């Protein structure tokens, strides 16, 4: 595969995979927590939280990217402290691409997991409580296994969205080959130069292959888990 793709192309693919995996893995705990809160709790400001989570889905990606730059840029109101205290700089780094991809994919992940939370019968959790399980154990031994199909679906959806993220990423971390040039950015770049079509087309094929592979793996996993959860 490495002699089929040029080193630059190969770096873009590897970076996209790395960014997407990190984005999915890091946002998953938050996605589960937010989905749980939205599905099960009633509190003041719930609609506001729901709106905030969905914002990246409805805003132009460029706007999201610009907002990220304002907040997490080296001089941003969060970014300056990350730099001062942890030496962590996100803007124009691959780590910033992770943040952008995670933010953009978050609504899709939360929606999928929230639906599966709503499908869990709270009576089963009650039953677990009467059997001696504390709320934390109830979550780990009953709720989490039952929402697993939704978690898998949400994670795969988020991964696919992260692989394809373009607008917010290019606005927040730009398009530096080898550092922040992800697969979509690379395709975009090749399309801007005359004669770049063959390179762009190879990356398009890689995109399709990765997306299909992710879908097949998630379908296999989800159907196995769903069979188990259905109790058969």
């Amino acid at each position, binding site marked *: 595969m490495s002699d089929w793709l040029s080193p630059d192309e190969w770096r873009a693919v590897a970076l996209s995979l790395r960014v997407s995996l990190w984005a999915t893995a890091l946002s998953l705990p938050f996605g589960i927590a937010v989905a749980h809160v939205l599905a099960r709790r009633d509190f003041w400001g719930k609609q506001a939280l729901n709106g905030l989570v969905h914002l990246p889905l409805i805003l132009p990606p460029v706007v999201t990217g610009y907002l990220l730059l304002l907040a997490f840029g080296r001089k941003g109101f969060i970014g300056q402290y990350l730099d001062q205290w942890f030496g962590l700089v996100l803007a124009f780094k691959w780590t910033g691409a992770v943040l952008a991809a995670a933010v953009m994919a978050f609504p899709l992940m939360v929606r999928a997991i929230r639906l599966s939370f709503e499908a869990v*019968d709270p*009576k*089963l959790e*009650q*039953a*677990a*409580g*009467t*059997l*001696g*399980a*504390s*709320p934390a*154990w*109830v979550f780990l*031994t*009953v709720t989490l*296994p*039952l929402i697993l199909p939704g978690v898998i679906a949400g994670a795969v959806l988020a991964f696919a969205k992260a692989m394809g993220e373009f607008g917010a990423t290019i606005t927040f971390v730009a398009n530096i080959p080898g550092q922040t040039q992800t697969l979509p950015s690379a395709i975009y770049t090749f399309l801007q130069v005359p004669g770049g079509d063959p390179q762009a087309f190879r990356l398009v094929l890689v995109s399709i292959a990765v997306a299909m592979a992710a879908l097949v793996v998630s379908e296999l996993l989800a159907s196995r888990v769903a069979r*188990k*959860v*259905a*109790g*058969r």
Partner: protein
Amino acid sequence: MTLSVALNHQFPGFTLDVNFVAPPGLTALFGRSGSGKTSVINAVAGILRPDQGRISTADTILLDTSSAINLPPHRRRLGYVFQDARLFPHLTVQQNLSYGRWFARPSNGPNFDDIVGLLGLQALLQRRPGALSGGEKSRVAIGRALLSNPALLLMDEPFAALDDPRKAELLPYIETLRDQTQIPILYVSHALPEVARLATTLVVLDQGRSLHAGPAADLLADPDLAPALGLRDAGAMISAEITAQGPDGLTELHSAGGPLWLPQIASPPGTRLRIRIAAQDVILSRQRPEGLSALNIMHGQITEIRLSDDGALVQLAIGAEHLLARITQRSATALRLAPGDPIFAIVKSVAVAQKDIGKR
């Protein structure tokens, strides 16, 4: 061990006001649907938090609103068998049964194999709940609750979803639990025959209030209570012991009122049983009748008569126990029945159904 329950809770348009004591044995909470039975049992479980109340066992206070004690469900050490089984669909039967043992509870609980044997679950262990019948699910739910080593067992109409043959199969398991374990059982039901067969203590609920509470045999034989329990279902229990199996498909029993013959009961001689006799199946006679097809003639004494528009309810003493007879006012007047009179109670053998015969 004894469970004391006193609670008061205001639902929109419905007040729950209940007070009773459940001694060891099986305490049935009986009432129509909507009388608050499930709310009471949920309050004991800690799922419902009443406005005011105190719920305690011999050594633990589960709830005391006056001193702000309210143990969460997982620290109340109870087994709750829900109406709808509520097995965990992602676990096998074996894992469902063991679920309660994952959590720190005293380890001297019931033996896994004993419970599996008692409830006949051996063949089901590797299956998942989705592949079980309704009766099997109920049995697993009972086993799961028992194996969590509860200090108290709560059962909310565990057989409501089952047909009569299934129910008949499972009732003996409950009798065994009642007689072989020391755990008090709180059993919710709206089916009087089931209650009569299983209960040692009875609490009658009506519109959120506990009207009566006491030994089941006494309450079921109380003519004043029969209208609240339902006249068609009213009936008292007497105990009897199998003496012989007749060659003609009848079983002979010894009771305080004389010998009884009932349709075959598949238990060996010496087995002690409790038999529910519906009040409307009892015929009263001043003299010992002759030339009668009914086989069972018990001798007793009238202890109480309650007259109403629905007829006469007559309570008879048979030895130390009581029988209830429902006759018309006209018959009661014509026979000039009065408390203290000796009387013969006649019951057709076939009037006693198998489901009315329980272990003592």
